[in-house]
């Protein structure tokens, strides 16, 4: 009886290891944490509405307007 039980256990274990691929973890990681579904993507943040994007251009325009003002004054004097 003992011999039969031993040979049965051997047979089962052999068949399990025979089906296993070379790099596959033993028993297919039965007790490992299974990967869960990724969380749903959060909605994109609302768009910004900036106004100071052309600040440098405005400063340059201020300089140009000032230059024109003083140049015109020079002509009239």
């Amino acid at each position, binding site marked *: 009886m003992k011999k039969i039980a031993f040979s049965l256990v051997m047979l089962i274990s052999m068949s399990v290891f025979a089906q296993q691929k070379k790099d596959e973890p033993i028993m297919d990681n039965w007790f490992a944490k299974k990967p869960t579904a990724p969380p749903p993507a959060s909605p994109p943040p*609302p768009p910004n509405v*900036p106004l100071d994007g052309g600040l440098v251009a405005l400063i340059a325009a201020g300089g140009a307007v000032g230059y024109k003002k003083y140049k015109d004054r020079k002509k009239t004097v």
Partner: protein
Amino acid sequence: MLHTIKGELPSGFLRFAIRFSIALLVLLTVYKFYLWFTEQKEDLDWITYQVSYLSHRFALALGIADCEFSCFMDGCRIGVEGKMINVLEGCNGIKLAFVYIAYLIGVNENNRSTLIQSFIGLILIQLFNVFRIGMLVMLIYHGGDMYFFFIKYIFGVFIYGSIIVLWLLKPVVDRYLNRHV
């Protein structure tokens, strides 16, 4: 070399350029300090909050009844759920007003006129900004490409163009203020 440059520039321009630069630098530094101070308090700056709050009120007046308004440390969100816009510090238009005021200080010929024009310019720029954000909330609510068209071209061209026109018209405004105020 400086002497040569000075000789080629129209008289008074160098004085204007220095005053313009210093005025802008002082205004921006004070503002940066104010922002740093509010950040330390873990608060949103008062200007951004007020612009956002008034824009929300304007959006409600435009007929967007379910328009929501919520503020965080970095800015406010206005609009209908899923179709909101984010009003950050860079959206409050105060830096534009500073450039406008710095120019007036640069060409300052009359303290009273400069003060009146600075005050009116500041109020007008802020009012336009409230109008702009309110309109953007409405445009994003109704959907379509108009929102992108308006934010990218119309409002920018209008506000920057208006400031330049106000600078060019300054002598006329000065004459009017001297006569009537």
